[in-house]
């Protein structure tokens, strides 16, 4: 793989050079110190000192709501108008892994053009990160990326070491080759390796993901699930912030005064009450415990057999989001037989049913 160096002062000129008419999305700090991916024109808004954004970057490819097609009496017309050239700068390894998993998912058996077309129009510029106590990517083996990005920037104080991951990435460098240095010094290499080692040591959370498929199977009827079901607020947040969740609903929205409908695709979440309802009022998963089982089956078990790795990429967003502590970290630890101090474990046993 080709590796180059970029002085930090040269970052904005480089972004300026490659942006063109594309939309550049990058992490931006909100007032409350949390980060979100936002389209930026003023690069000074970019804040790379972040651990995770509230929503994962899949929102950039498939927004919460968009038109799939227009339906009239006897004609159906595709609508891809939400897709345009985009660059994501500052995306972390876990989220890049999530994109790779979603690529497989959306190509499985039948291709989903809404994801794949958006993906073709996307440039991914990754950025190194530092773990906090909720990062589980070392356990899911998604803390480093070998593929899936065009360029990957590793922060070495005053410079970036830039790995070129695709021929398109190489082309981007060629837009302004004078900003880059070709040769890495021994000191650079030492710094890079030292950083990697220090980062590996900084992970404080270890989850035994290899054991999860068996544990999910063995503990499918464990009392744990009832406890989780009693505590779950069914707010759908764990699902909405998960970078590998993909469920959606379709709505037919007629346009007032016109004779056509917009057929809209909008995010859905299997943890929500209405998700498994069918016409006629029956609901296949009325119990919160059953819906949680489905979600955790998908995160900890099912993708392994189909795509070779768990759906969870260890980003820790569900940990940072759930008000009642139901997340991959606590659930996996409990399944593994550990004592977990969490709201759902303290919740009164005599809760009103």
């Amino acid at each position, binding site marked *: 793989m080709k590796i180059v160096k970029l002085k930090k002062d040269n970052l904005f000129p480089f972004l300026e050079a490659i942006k063109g*008419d594309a939309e550049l999305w990058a992490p931006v700090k909100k007032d409350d110190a949390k980060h979100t991916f936002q389209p930026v024109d003023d690069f000074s808004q970019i804040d790379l000192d972040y651990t995770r954004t509230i929503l994962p970057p899949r929102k950039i490819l498939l927004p919460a709501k968009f038109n799939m097609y227009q339906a009239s009496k006897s004609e159906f017309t595709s609508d891809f108008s939400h897709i345009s050239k985009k660059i994501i700068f500052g995306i972390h390894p876990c989220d890049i892994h999530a994109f790779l998993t979603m690529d497989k998912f959306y190509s499985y058996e039948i291709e989903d053009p809404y994801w794949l077309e958006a993906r073709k129009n996307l440039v991914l510029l990754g950025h190194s990160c530092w773990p906090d106590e909720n990062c589980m990517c070392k356990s899911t083996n998604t803390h480093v990326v070998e593929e899936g990005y065009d360029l990957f920037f590793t922060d070495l104080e005053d410079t970036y070491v830039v790995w070129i991951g695709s021929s398109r990435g190489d082309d981007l460098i060629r837009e302004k080759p004078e900003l880059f240095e070709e040769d890495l010094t021994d000191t650079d290499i030492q710094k890079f390796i030292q950083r990697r080692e220090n980062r590996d040591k900084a992970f404080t959370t270890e989850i035994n993901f290899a054991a999860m498929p068996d544990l999910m199977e063995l503990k499918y009827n464990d009392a744990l699930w009832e406890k989780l079901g009693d505590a779950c607020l069914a707010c759908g947040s764990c699902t909405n912030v998960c970078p590998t969740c993909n469920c959606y609903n*379709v709505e037919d929205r007629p346009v007032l005064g016109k004779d056509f409908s917009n057929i809209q695709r909008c995010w859905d979440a299997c943890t929500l009450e209405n998700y498994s309802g069918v016409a006629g009022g029956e609901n*296949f998963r009325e119990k919160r415990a059953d819906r949680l089982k489905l979600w955790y089956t998908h995160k900890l078990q099912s993708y392994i057999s189909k795509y070779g790795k768990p759906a969870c990429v260890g980003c820790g967003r569900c940990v940072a989001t759930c008000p009642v502590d139901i997340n991959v970290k606590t659930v996996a630890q409990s399944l593994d037989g550990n004592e977990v101090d969490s709201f759902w474990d303290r919740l009164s046993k005599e809760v009103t049913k």
Partner: protein
Amino acid sequence: MNTENKITAQSNPFLPEPARIVRTYPLTDDVHFFQVRIADMEKALSFRYEIGQFAMISVLGAGEAPFSISSTPSRPGLLEFCIRRAGAVTSKLFQLKENDFVGIRGPYGNGFPVEKMQGKDILIVMGGLGAAPLRSVLLYCLDNRDLFGRIILLHGAKRPAEMLFRDELLDIKKRDDLEGYLTVDGDDTGQWTENVGVVTTLFPKLENINPENTVGVVCGPPVMYKFVLQEFLKLDIPKDQILMTLERRMKCGVGKCGHCAIDYIYTCLEGPVFSYWDVTHMRELI
């Protein structure tokens, strides 16, 4: 990054094909029959499907929903559906008349394993709306009569007026290459000349079943499965030769929207047809 953005998706699997309702009439109070033809003649004839597959039907202003195909692929060109009024889509669909447009997408799902069924005796047990997918199986077997051994049909309904395809089946029953038994839970007409009792009361009538060479096919209301499966097992039909078709909520039909997931199986891709052996592995179903 200044190259012009062109969407190149050749075919969009989510886009329905305009189709016209050719015929529609009530089968019962709340179940209507729809015969539909894709408007583009070439596409209508090249719409290939397997028995047990389903299609998505969309109705302008109401939405889209999955329906089992009730016609047989051995009679191409027209698609037939047997639909119960249940939600927004079907309510609007019931208001439509002949020559009105709907959208069709599909076919989706795995369908019945026809090759494995060939040469076998086929025992079809259907109740209520279970007739929607299994009529396709029945007609297919009859259209390809030489490919199968015995064909046995057990069909149950609550009352004579609620029996789907009653006249068609009474007619088919007269054939001498088919063993057909129809039953109703109760006869409120006094005109019913067939069996009275739940569908399992028909099983004692079956003679000389060779279980190793029999494929049992069942579809009906949830309560029916349990009892029919017991009867199949009593006959010693192997679990992987017992086939059933399951219904779930679906929004895409192509394994993307997630709604039909049972455990980690997407019923729209790996189903809706499962063997009893498959189903014993699917925890959420039991």
